[in-house]
């Protein structure tokens, strides 16, 4: 028996619905159909009246969640794809994010964003939106990379009194399996050393953590390099202390992300390391993101658009040879 990443998300929601009467789910096709990715399969039957199909109205879905949260509920909103949250952008960044600061009343809501690319998904079903939301004060943005984190971080997201943008990676849904959900959870805001090393640090999050580990394995085989991989887990808050401690050990930094290259999480990591840990660096820090085009449809183009173990290895070799 094993648990997939999407199973973990489903099980977390089941536990939340079972244990917290304030929790309900709202989203497109999530009721009897069980959601586009089956993250809510069977939950409508198990919890009648608490798993509700929404119209195709992303703006209203988040506005609804803000209203429900004001009234003391804990809504979980499933965006069918992270890409479609652009329609809800206003309600997320102007209504939800500003609410506590303006009124003193927190709005505990969780928006689940099925994020990132999968082969053949194309420009409008592949986007990574985390940097956009992390830019706005008032939001917590999490990016779980493991089965257990997917589970525990969803529980913690819903328990938090602040609005949380929960970025779950679609590529990991079924590909990523674990024997069980383990108990090694860390609080949101703490990064994890996924793979210890001493020659260079790769800071990654979400699906890119796994690509970084693959690249690190290759460099170990090919040259005996010990690459440390840091999984940010949440991009806001960003655990720069763990990153700096890693850079202090390795002296070299590669910031890795699947999102578009301009600005974003990787730029933020490098900026902070340069500001607070310039003296720790033995080489100029590097960053690797997707290419600066929309996410292409064809699997061959898609595979060359995002960072891969090959391109990560190239970037690391350049970093190591400085």
């Amino acid at each position, binding site marked *: 028996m094993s648990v997939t990443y999407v199973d973990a998300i489903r099980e977390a929601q089941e536990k939340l619905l079972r244990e917290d009467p304030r929790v309900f789910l709202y989203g497109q096709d999530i009721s009897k159909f069980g959601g586009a990715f089956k993250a809510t399969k069977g939950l409508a039957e198990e919890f009648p009246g608490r798993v*509700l199909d929404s119209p195709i109205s992303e703006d209203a879905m988040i506005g609804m969640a803000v209203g429900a949260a004001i*009234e003391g509920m804990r809504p979980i909103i499933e965006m069918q794809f992270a890409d479609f949250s652009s329609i809800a952008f206003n309600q997320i960044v102007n209504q939800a994010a500003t*609410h506590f600061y303006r*009124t003193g009343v927190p709005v505990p809501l969780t928006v689940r964003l099925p994020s990132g690319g999968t082969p053949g998904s194309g420009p409008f079903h592949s986007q990574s939106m985390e940097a956009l939301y992390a830019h706005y004060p008032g939001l917590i943005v999490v990016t779980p990379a493991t089965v257990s984190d997917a589970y525990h971080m969803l529980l913690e997201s819903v328990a938090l009194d602040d609005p949380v943008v929960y970025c779950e990676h679609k590529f990991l849904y079924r590909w990523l399996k674990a024997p069980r959900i383990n108990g090694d959870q860390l609080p949101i805001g703490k990064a994890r050393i996924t793979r210890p090393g001493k020659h260079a640090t790769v800071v990654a999050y979400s699906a890119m953590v796994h690509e970084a580990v693959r690249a690190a394995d290759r460099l170990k085989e090919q040259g005996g390099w010990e690459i440390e991989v840091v999984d940010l887990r949440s991009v806001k*808050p*960003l655990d720069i202390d763990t990153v700096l401690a890693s850079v202090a050990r390795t002296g070299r930094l590669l910031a890795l992300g699947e999102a578009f290259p301009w600005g974003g999480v990787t730029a933020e990591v490098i900026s902070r390391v340069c500001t607070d840990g310039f003296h720790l660096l033995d080489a100029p820090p590097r960053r690797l993101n997707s290419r600066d085009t929309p996410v292409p449809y064809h699997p061959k183009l898609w595979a060359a658009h995002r960072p891969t173990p090959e391109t990560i290895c190239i970037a690391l070799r350049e970093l190591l040879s400085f």
Partner: protein
Amino acid sequence: MPETEEAQRTAVDLDRDYVREVFRAMLRARLLENKLSSLYKAGKIVGGVYLGKGQEAVSASLGASLIKGRDIFAALIRDQAGRTAFGEPLIDCTRTYLGSVLGPMKGRDGNIHRGRPLDGMPAMISHLGAAVSVVGGMLIARRLKGELAGVVGATCVGDGATSTGAFHEGLNMAAVEQLPMVVIVGNNQFAYSTPTDRQFACEDLLDRAKGYGVGGHSVDGTDLLACTKVIGNAVKLAREGNGPQMVVARLLRLSGHGEHDDGSYVPPVLKDSQLGRDCIETGVVQLIESGIATVEEIERWKREFTDEVQAAVAQAQQEPTPDPWDENWNACSTPTGRGL
């Protein structure tokens, strides 16, 4: 189910106390807003001042039809009268406009951007139509908690907001969920300076009610008695389980968009038309003619409210304004959210 105003008049008996309450809120709001305008022109208010002049009958009829402590009212920018009728203290208004740290927004947001969400008064954002789904969510929460019976959630928008996606999504969602919601569209002929013929192409915004599958009602927003009846009835229908109700009120904004705007784009012919009537003036005539209030009473109310406004302004002016040093600068409520 569009109904004529005449049918509404006969359908709902005139409730004397309700009409008096509506008018008193209108008067209180007008006197307060006149004062706000003076303060703005004297440079005492930073930022914009947005008035509901000419829209008080519509707004107050809604506010007075709602029950504070039970119902939900998401006011928009021209709803001082509705807020007052719903029970928002005048001091919330003056504190927010004057930046008192004791106000509900503590100087973090200003002017009409205020509310007390836990008392059923969500605070508006500037993005029009955005409150419709918020009210929907508050009502859905009440339903999930088993506390929806007898509750109404209401909000106001202008003709301009009906062009937004948020308005459409929110009202459609409310209709799908059959929520006890009332949406008042104050068609004041201009969205800032844009006339309605550049805003929508349907003959009447009321036509949209049928499209959404919600109850539709039309009213002359300058006619106090018509407003109390039509809006009071719409709230009653929503409360009794007839699903969302949309009221389109025809009127004219008797001020600029804000006090920085002289509204010079409003043609004189419109100002001189039925739409340009001042609902307070028509209201005074109606109250006196129908015996609902006397001239002496109205004069007494004016004096009473003038004093009240003066006191609310004076109090807010004496209170401390926010100190950046004391400000905690936290956009999140949890320690987790306070991490950068």
